[in-house]
């Protein structure tokens, strides 16, 4: 079996299968593997193309265009947050930063206690987490793999006496090209594309690329019909409609897209599209006298963990976390707050710049709306409390950089907030974060089809079945009631395998 690029077909034929999975990322590929291994006839729909090795050219323009949902330009409706999500065979792991941060036991306990998800206890999740770690070939980056950006952050953290860590990752054979966020040209990420997908193919699963699911019909009948657009070879235009008929449909399109599909199909209760966590990230840059060249080496390896905790009564994981980050010129330039000669002068600092992202767990109060033409609207729920934590995180990042010897720290807002000494931190306190003035990012979307033991509290049962349907399951992070972790790939692989195994039992295999 191979991967079928639907865009190459003159007329895509309708397809029958036992299970239709929408999305081939952390959740979809894992579920396909489990279900195909159990002998089920599985077809996976993926709207992205298949990109590996030298097709991953390291160029911002074509790679954001091809590897990201909405060409990397998806945002919340007020443009406060750029919402990043992979769109490629293998999903997010193809373009992610390869950090492996499993769900903390404290967060799992919170889900049991606060949300009644008794199936998600640390003990229940442990074997699936261990399996995910094995599938990812998890390992620690070697000391010499830490680039200057990550080292400077560590230096600052240590100078302040704060806690921090070098993050585990799923790279094997990494040569430090620095382009993880637009795909690894050396195929050095041991991810869905190179582990779960080949294994699922081997077991007979079929993967259709350039195939966009837009509607599910008959969610409460035995056989469901998924309406699918054949896309053009570059994935921008819808060409011809075809159908996949299956008794079971698995949503694994990434939290937002899974909820979007339900909303477009008019499936599910009033909780669909609500309780969304975007986990906003605030970028902070720093200028050093010496060259940093953050664009080479592993972009994200060191994290300040001093300010995060996992046992918050209301939220589980809470506080904030600060991680090094880097990017190719195109994407870095999108964070710059001004044009003209001044903007160009800022970009000329590129080799001397260091950068971090401040990761902010949120309250899962964002919500989704879908217009009649299918256009997704994302309404974020950043409130005063979250913006307060953003200020604290921004100041902590600035302190760490100053402690590491930065000449200047900048939050790239309009107008830019520049910090050269401790006293300047008051400028961060004065930030009002007006929409479309601060380039917040989101890379770890969760919620939208919240799992809950009772239909009155959520959109899907704890086994993933969407309330009001017979055989439509949400197996990605759409079901998460709160942020599972600062990094979602490993938690999603963990829970997707657990729920897919339960589904195999439910389907009588």
């Amino acid at each position, binding site marked *: 079996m191979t991967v079928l690029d639907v865009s190459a077909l003159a007329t895509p034929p309708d397809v029958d299968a036992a299970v239709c999975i929408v999305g081939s990322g952390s959740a979809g590929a894992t579920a396909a593997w489990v279900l195909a291994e159990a002998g089920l006839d599985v077809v996976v729909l993926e709207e992205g193309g298949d990109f590996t*090795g*030298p097709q*991953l*050219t*390291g*160029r*911002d*323009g074509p790679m*954001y265009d091809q590897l990201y*949902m*909405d*060409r*990397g*330009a*998806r*945002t919340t*409706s*007020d*443009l406060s947050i*750029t919402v990043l999500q992979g769109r490629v065979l293998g999903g997010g792991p193809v373009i992610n930063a390869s950090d492996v941060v499993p769900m903390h036991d404290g967060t799992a306990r919170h889900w049991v206690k606060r949300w009644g998800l008794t199936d998600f206890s640390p003990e229940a999740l442990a074997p699936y987490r261990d399996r995910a770690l094995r599938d990812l070939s998890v390992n620690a980056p070697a000391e010499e793999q830490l680039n200057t950006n990550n080292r400077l952050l560590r230096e600052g953290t240590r100078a302040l006496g704060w806690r921090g860590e070098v993050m585990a990752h799923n790279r094997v054979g990494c*040569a430090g*090209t*620095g*382009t993880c966020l637009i795909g690894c*040209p*050396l195929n050095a990420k041991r991810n869905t594309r190179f582990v779960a997908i080949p294994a699922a193919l081997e077991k007979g699963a079929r993967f259709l690329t350039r195939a966009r699911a837009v509607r599910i019909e008959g969610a409460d009948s035995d056989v469901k019909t998924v309406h699918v657009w054949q896309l053009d070879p*570059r994935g*921008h*235009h819808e060409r011809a409609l075809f159908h996949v008929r299956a008794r079971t449909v698995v949503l694994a399109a990434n939290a937002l897209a899974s909820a979007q599909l339900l909303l477009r199909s008019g499936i599910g209760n009033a909780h669909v599209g609500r309780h969304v966590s975007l986990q906003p990230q605030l970028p902070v840059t720093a200028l050093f006298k010496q060259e940093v060249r953050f664009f*080479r080496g592993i972009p994200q390896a060191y994290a300040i963990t001093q300010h995060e905790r996992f046992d918050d009564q209301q939220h589980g994981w809470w506080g904030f976390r600060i991680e090094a980050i880097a990017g*190719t*010129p*195109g*994407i*870095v*330039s*999108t964070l*710059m*707050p*001004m*044009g*003209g*000669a001044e*903007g*160009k*002068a800022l*970009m*000329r600092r*590129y*080799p001397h710049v260091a950068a971090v992202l401040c990761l902010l767990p949120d309250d899962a109060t964002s919500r989704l709306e879908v217009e009649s*033409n299918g*256009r*997704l609207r994302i309404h974020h729920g950043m409130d005063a409390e979250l913006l307060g934590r953003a200020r604290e995180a921004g100041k902590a990042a600035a302190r760490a950089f100053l402690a590491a010897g930065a000449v200047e720290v900048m939050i790239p807002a*309009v*107008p830019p907030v520049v910090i050269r000494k401790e006293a300047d931190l008051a400028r961060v306190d004065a930030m009002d974060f*007006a*929409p*479309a*003035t601060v*380039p917040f990012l989101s890379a770890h979307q969760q919620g939208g089809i919240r799992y809950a033991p009772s239909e009155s509290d959520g959109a899907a049962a704890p086994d993933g079945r969407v309330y009001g349907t017979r055989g439509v399951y949400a197996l990605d992070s759409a079901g998460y009631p709160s942020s599972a972790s600062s990094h979602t790939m490993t938690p999603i692989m963990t829970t997707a395998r657990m729920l897919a195994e339960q589904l195999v039992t439910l389907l009588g295999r």
Partner: protein
Amino acid sequence: MDSPLFRRRAFLGACAGAGGLLFMGGALAWLRGSAPAVDGLLALTPQEHRTLVALCRALFPATPEFPHNADDADLARRFDLFLADEPPWNREDLKKALFLLEFSPVLAFRVSTFSRLDEPARLLHFASWQRSRVLLLRQAAAGFLRILSLMFYDDRAAWPAIGYEGPIHRAVTP
């Protein structure tokens, strides 16, 4: 790009307001003048192209240390190609934003369209959008700046000035 750059109704309202004012004054045709034909445009009209070229030149001018500029990078053409592949709603939103940009100096009581302003004045006008109290204008400015920056700095010829040697994977691929 599926990003809702603008709330449609507010946007249409603002455009209608701007357009209405201009029509009332009978100034539109005079102000706009005629834009030269441009070969091979896929999504933009010549008028929109002219506004975009003016914006690109203001955002990415040649400087002594960084001579590579918007024209060298053929930025307006790249943007037109990008727009042609966008879903209709984004294409329309961005085109309306160009319309609004072109005539918004008039709303600020200047007797000039955006593309007729000199480069420093255009940059100042753009910055006023970035800092505006009107969300719609901030959104439009942020949207244009992000898209155009990504295109400009993806251009190889921009790299020497920023100390970037380009992707190195060919050198290390076995």
